[in-house]
Structures are given as C-alpha cells and as structure tokens.
C-alpha cells in the first residue's frame, strides 16, 4: 500500500512540473503586450516601460518561470497582473466553494447511479432496465447547465421551493447552504449519475455471469448475501474508475453550473481571467485543479487496491 502511494507520488511530481511548464509557455503565445494593456490607453513609452519592469516582463521567460516555481513551492502562486490580488488568496476563497459543489454532485451521482445500475442489471431487459437505460441515455446527452436552467425555472421560480440566487457559505449556515446547493448538485450530478448507472449495469451483468457467483449461490448463500458481499464488491471496481474520471469532468462542468446558479466559485474567476487575459490567475487555477485531480486519482487507486486484493 505504501509502495503504491510512493510510486504514484513519484509520477505526480513530473506531471505537475510539466503542466506548469505548459501553462507558462502559453504566456508566450498571448498576442499583444500585457504591459501596454495595463498601462492604459494614453500611457507614454516610459510608463509602459515602468509597468513592464513592475510586472517583471523585461526579464527572460525562463527566469520568470523559475521565480514563479520557487514561489509556488512555498504556496505563493503570484499576483494578478491587473488587480495585483494574491492568486493564492483568491483560490483559497473560491476553490472550497467549487470543491463542495463538485463533491456533493459526486455523492449525488453515486447515490442515484449505483442503485439504478444495480436495479437495471438485476431486471435486465425488463421495463425497469429499459427505463433506466433510456433516462441514462438522455442524461448523458443533456447539457447539465440546461438541466440546471430547467430546474431553476420549475423549482425555484414557479414553485418557489429553492432560492434562485445567492450563495450561503457552508461555514456560515450549513442548513441554508444545503438548501441552496440542492439544485446545482442535481444539475451537475445528473450526467455523472447516468454514466455511473450505465457502467455499473454493464459490470454487474458481467459479474453475475461469473463462476464464483454461481458457486456462492449453489452453496446455499442467501440472495442478498451473494449480491452484496460477492457480486457488488467485484462489480464496484470499474465504478471507482468512473467516479474518479467523473471528478475531473465535474470540476470542469462546475464552472458552467456556477454561472447558472451564481455561485462564487472558481468558474467566474476563470472566465473573467480568460476575458481579461490575466494569465497568472488562469495558471493558478490550472495548477490547483491538476493537484485536486492527482489526489483524486490517488484515492481511486487506493480504493481499487482495497476492493480487489490482486492489485495490492
């Protein structure tokens, strides 16, 4: 187990370095001179030159990258080119919001997708199966933000059951947070739930046909024991992989859902930074999300090892 973690961490470090290098190289591609933009329209040559010095743009690219890297290692991701806000500070405020939304969507996906997948597999080719497969097919094709828009129209505006906008931080009032996060969670988690259900159905059907399940049934084990103890642990493995990939997808999709429900996460920050060409912030967001995904994959690997002793 420890060796596994160690091996993964060894792979992770080069990956993180590579991603930062890539993002940093992108800054060379940006058309136009940021210094000219920031100095304003009527800036003189000296003013532009001063701005350039202040931003460190007069130094060669590799020096800036190494500087940034040294800062990043200490948790300082630099400052916004425009507002001079600390990027670490901005991310510290906004990332927890997005992460909470993403995690609750993941939980929703598991809570809905797992029973649906099992039911579909057990009632294979009957109406329950057809229904679940049909809904899942639509769920995968439907953009989550459109579902969000529809939910917002029906449940928040027409029925008034949920707040339309306004976000309450979890630390401030957990009940209000939960109330406000329900619709975004459903909108974000629905496609993931569909994917989980499809995957679990397939792997459960495969598992149910295997010899060890027949043996367990033949030796007189109760139906639910066979299902729960033998089949499910075996079938759960691909689902863990799906959940890990979904985490990455959800983190991206959350950016769009946040816009629908006006949630102050990294989504708005990312979009505004792209429009303003504030690359330091984009860079910070990219690096931090990579880190989150690397950790998720590590957790998924551990879960794999726990579920199937063969890979341990």
């Amino acid at each position, binding site marked *: 187990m420890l060796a596994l973690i160690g091996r993964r961490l060894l792979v992770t470090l080069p*990956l993180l370095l*590579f*991603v930062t290098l890539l*993002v940093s190289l*992108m*800054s060379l*591609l*940006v*058309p136009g001179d940021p210094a000219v933009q920031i100095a304003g329209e009527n800036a003189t040559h000296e003013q532009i030159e001063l701005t350039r010095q202040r931003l460190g743009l007069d130094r060669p690219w590799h020096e800036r990258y190494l500087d940034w890297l040294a800062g990043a290692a200490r948790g300082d991701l630099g400052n916004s080119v425009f507002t001079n806000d600390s990027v670490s500070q901005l991310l510290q405020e906004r990332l927890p919001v997005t992460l909470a939304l993403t995690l609750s969507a993941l939980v929703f996906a598991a809570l809905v997708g797992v029973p649906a997948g099992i039911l579909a597999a057990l009632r294979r080719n009957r109406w329950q199966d057809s229904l679940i497969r049909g809904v899942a*097919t*639509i769920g*995968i*094709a*439907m*953009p989550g*933000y*459109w579902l969000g*828009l*529809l939910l*917002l*129209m029906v449940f928040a*505006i027409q029925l008034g059951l949920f707040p*339309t906008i306004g976000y309450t931080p979890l630390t401030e009032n957990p009940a209000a947070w939960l109330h406000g996060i329900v619709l975004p969670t459903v909108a974000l988690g629905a496609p993931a739930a569909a994917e989980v259900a499809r995957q679990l159905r397939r792997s459960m059907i495969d598992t149910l046909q295997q010899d060890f399940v027949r043996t367990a049934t033949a030796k007189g084990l109760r139906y639910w024991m066979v299902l729960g103890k033998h089949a499910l642990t075996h079938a759960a493995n691909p689902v863990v992989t799906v959940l890990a990939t979904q985490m*990455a*997808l959800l*983190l*991206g*999709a959350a*950016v*769009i859902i946040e*816009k*629908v429900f006006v949630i102050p996460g990294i989504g708005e920050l*990312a*979009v505004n*930074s*792209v*429009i303003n*060409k504030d*690359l330091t912030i*984009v860079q910070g*967001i*990219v690096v931090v*999300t*990579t880190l989150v*995904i*690397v950790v998720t*994959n590590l957790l998924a690997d551990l879960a794999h090892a726990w579920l199937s002793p063969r890979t341990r």
Partner: protein
Amino acid sequence: MMPVDTRKTDTSSAPETAVAHYRHRWRFLRRFLSHPGAVLGGAFLALVAVLAMFGPHLAPHDPLQNNLGQVLQPPSGDHWLGTDDLGRDLLSRLIVATRITVQAALISLAVGVGIGVPLGLAAAIMPPLLGGLLMRITDGIMAFPPILLAIGVLGALGPGLTQAMIAVGVVFVPRFARLTRASVQQVYHETYIEASRVIGTPLRRILRWHVLPNITGPLVVQIAVTCGFAMLAEAGLSFLGLGAQPPDASWGALLGRALPYVNTAWWLGIAPGLLITLTVLATNAVADGIGDSLGRGSRRQK
C-alpha cells in the same frame, strides 16, 4: 476503450476485390439499418445538416433585425418561439445558429484528428522509448478536466469561436493519439506487414495500404462519439461567453443569453437546450449504431 479485433488475420487488410468491398459496405448498411435508434438519429442529423446548409434561406425573419417594440415576446403566430431581449426572432436565430454550431464541431474534430492521428501513428512506429514518452505526455494532458483545459488554452488565445474550438480540439488530440497508437500497434507487427517491409515497400505505402485500413473502423467510431462531445463543449464555452461572439450566435450562446431572463422569458431557454440535447442524443445513437455495425470485432454484445 473500444474493443478492437484481435483475431484479425493476414487477409483482413489485403487489397480487396471490388465485389468483396461492395459486400462489405452492404453488410454495414444492413446492420446499421437494423438499429432503429441509429436510423432515427441519422434522420435527425440530416435535418440539422439541411438547416446548417440552407439556414439563412429558411429563417422566417432576419435573425439580426432588432425590433425594440417587440422585446421578449412569448411564442405567437408570428414568432413561433418568441423574441429575445432585442426583439429578434428566436426561431430564425436558432436556424441560423445551426451552421455556426456545426462548423464549430467540425473545426474541433479536424484539430483533434489532424493532430492526434499523425501523433499516434508516429508514436506507434517510433522507437518504443520515445513513443512511450510521447504517450506519457498525452496521458498527463488527458487527466485534465476538458472544459478547464479548453479555458486554459483560451487564456492564451483569447475568447472567440474559432479559438474556442481549437481549444476543444486540443482536448481531443490525446484521445485520438492513444486510439491510433493502440490500433496501429495491433497490426504493425503482423507477419504480412513485416513481410512487406522486408521486400522493401516504402513506409508510406505500408501505412496507406496496410495500416490505415485497419484503424479506420475504431477511428470512425471515435469520431462519431467525439462529435457529440464537441457539440456539448462548444455549447458550454459559448454559454460562458467564451465562444461565439455577438451578434453571431451558436445554440450554446443563445442559451447563455437566455440566462438573465429566466424569470421573465422562460421560452428563450427551452428551444436552444432542447435542440442541443436532441442533436447530441442523435449523434450518440448514430455512434452506437456505427460501432455495432462495423466489422466482427467491434460489435459488442449487449
């Protein structure tokens, strides 16, 4: 990943006679037509294609004509889907947006296939060490959330539809590269290709006549699957305002524009979303149909 035929024999990619080729194609069509979902999806996509080609002629109103006297009108006999915040006819805007949406999906596919396939091909025939390194890099890019990667690329390119679709195409590159490499590796060391190499066939001819025919199947399926994703990605980025820029609109951009009016003009948000969902649904159904209808190995038992 795609199930790929491992039982392929030496004859599978040998130059076929015209008759065998014809029979092949016919079998594919027969199988495809036996999937009602795929046929229905294909018909819907044909409709979308007609809208994309002749949209400007089919639109009942001028999609860019502001009419401030008729702002945010609900659906009526004159404006079937209502009007938007500038009094423009939503139906006309949707029809005209079809071309932009389809174009966007095609651009990203072209970028993904155009870079990904040669990259995978190169990685497969390169020395294993180099090829492996190349694949590690694509692995790293693939681990990334697609939308965020696209936003990162857009950070460098600036917002705009073409830039957005290049960004989405970049997301697809590793997927196509991996698939190509895997498919090529499966056949590249078959005896008939080794034999061909030994007798001095130029690399280019080997690739064209022996390798490419073997990877088209999985590649076509992957393109079809990716197509649906490209549409969702374009819609998402345009929804955020990073894709199509006004006055141009794609379906996603129309949906994004509807957002501030959910309270007052619900109809603006229904039609574009429905159209996106149906198109992606149709694309996925066609992709499934193609996957099930292609050669022996690519068929999956349900």
